[in-house]
């Protein structure tokens, strides 16, 4: 499953309500079916830590860090890559 985030959040991914909706309605059902997910960040210039946290932290808590074998991040710029890394490191440390 590929989820194109730009269509949902625009060029700056900060709306946590949308992140929560994607997590609940797309990501969790797909992971429950053991599907692979690609989060496509094409055209996204930036993201907040809060947005990424709302998008993926609960997945790591629920499915464990092996969820990262199923969850891939595509077309991320440097900033977005670093924010995602921060959130994932943070979750694994907590």
């Amino acid at each position, binding site marked *: 499953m590929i989820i194109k985030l730009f269509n949902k959040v625009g060029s*700056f991914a900060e709306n946590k309500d949308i992140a929560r909706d994607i997590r609940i309605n797309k990501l969790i059902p797909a992971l429950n079916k053991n599907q692979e997910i690609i989060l496509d960040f094409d055209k996204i210039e930036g993201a907040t*830590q809060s947005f990424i946290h709302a998008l993926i932290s609960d997945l790591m808590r629920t499915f464990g860090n092996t969820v990262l074998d199923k969850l891939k991040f595509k077309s991320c710029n440097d900033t977005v890559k670093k924010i995602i890394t921060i959130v994932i490191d943070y979750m694994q440390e907590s």
Partner: protein
Amino acid sequence: MKIHIPNSAFLGNIDPFLKGFDPSNKTKLTITANKKWSSIHPVVLSMIAALGLTLKPNNIVCDKLESKSKHYLERMGLFKFLGIKSNIVIKQHESSGRFIPLTQIKDSKSLTEFIQDINPLLHLKPDHAEPIRYIMSELIRNVLEHSLSGFGAIVCAQYYKKSNVIRIGIADTGVGIWKTINYSYKPKNDMDAIGLALAPGITGTTQKLGGTESNAGAGLFFIKSIATVNRDFFMIYSGTAMYKLLKRKGEKIKLHADPFKDRHSKKTGLPFWEGTVVGVDISLNTTPQFSLLLDLLNKTLIEAMKERKILYHKKPQFL
């Protein structure tokens, strides 16, 4: 309530302005101003507007302003916010104007629309836009999620050409930091609560490390860190306490998980602000690449989490 717009109130010298605020008699707001000249940080305007919103216009008394800077107050939308006629005619879009007028944000959708408008209003280059929209988004979202204020967040910002700085002010009249943090922790006082709110891994929504699915407890730490790396002022005022990150010069930058280890000043016993006020300066001269800042931030965050995790380790009971 009484509030006086002084001759000068920026983050570096804002303490007397805060001390002069009189929060008594919440049914009326009296605004006075320096007669000659007022040069003020946007956070001052956000505070006045936030107070004004809690009252009907006929309960707001504003001195007849004589200083030249009344045009600035008009342009930033203060009188419109307060429902007071100023009788000042100005050109709304002067070429020199790089500012965000006072704006009330009450929901997530309005915040997203507001964030999209930041770049055109402040004429920011992409490198500069990143930290500024990041800061504004996270601070305003904090208000929407935690303040429980029916009036939302009151925000404004201004570019200062001479110093090449963007100054941002955000105020709310919600429950304040102590009450938010007290839900999960037991802060002794307002300053203790501010310290906890600025530390990574601490959120009012839970005591669990890593926060909840909605809150990581890292938002304010990120913002303070952006200000630290930029060597800029950052001020947070809630209840009777104010914490101020001071400017730094030359020395090597180190991010601290404990805000009281940063170069700072703090004031307690200030007039009670029911809610939270945040002021930030972002110098466009010193803004490093946002992605470099994130490297430093990640390192500090992980170290802080490791330290915090040790605090939660169970100890053996030796009998």
